């Protein structure tokens, strides 16, 4: 895929959105004294990747963005799987 500035901006927004959702879920889990093991590595990865796209997207080529997008979709699926665990539905509206 060819990644123009609009697509890169959209990808960055997707990364930020998912990272925020993960942070929100993590802080909820900490408040409820629930385990966060399943989240941490993914959250750190998303933080680092989001920061990299935000601060240095010119360093990436199309193939890199393809890879990041594929990782993002995996992370999204995993987040949706994690967030359903142990958290009552009314605590996780996002």
């Amino acid at each position, binding site marked *: 895929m060819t990644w123009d500035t609009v697509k890169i901006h959209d990808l960055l927004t997707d990364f930020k959105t998912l*990272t925020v959702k993960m942070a*929100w879920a*993590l802080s909820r889990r*900490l408040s409820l004294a629930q385990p966060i093991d399943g989240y941490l590595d993914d*959250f750190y990865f998303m*933080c680092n990747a989001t920061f990299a796209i935000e601060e240095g997207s010119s360093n990436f080529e199309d193939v890199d963005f393809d890879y990041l997008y594929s990782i993002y979709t995996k992370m999204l699926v995993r987040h949706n799987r994690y967030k359903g665990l142990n958290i009552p539905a009314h605590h996780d509206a*996002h």
Partner: protein
Amino acid sequence: MALVIEIMENTDATGFKLYDLTLWAGGFDNTKITDTSTLVLEVEYDGDTYTYTTPTGLYTDMGINGTYINLCGTALNSYFTVTPDKLYNGTTQLNSAYFPDGYYEITLYVTYDAVAEEDYSHQGFLAENYMMASKLPLTIDIDNFDYEENRLQFLCIALLRAATWAADLGRQTEFEEITTKVNDFLDARSINEIWSA
């Protein structure tokens, strides 16, 4: 043409930089702002709206003249620094010295070439929290290493970054929940406020 602004908080919270990223059709021409009082800056914080208010006014304070290529100066990366002592809600000043950490919505208005323009920016101002978190990680007892505590300290720093992005996205609820968690965490480790104490 659409007005486009960018905001960047100073690392010591004493002000924020206002950038003008607008693509001014035909180039910026200050004479097209026929009523300089239409240039207005508003800052919404903690449920209140503060307006940039000085005797001379925003247009004059920004120094806008015929040499400017945008609202902020003669270069693409020119900026205007806004300090909290110039922002008033009625007679109430936002703050005399620093921007308290929190969620801000900053809006700039101007009527240019007879067209009313505006742009706003969501911002998480977290300078003090970042300064406090920079004390992490706390001293580690390598002989009695606490893995759980260590990873929580690194998590705190990552949560701060996520809070900044939450504000970028206008997700105020998440911003407030995450920053509350960060503050609880810092308080529990006796990392005190630096300038707001």
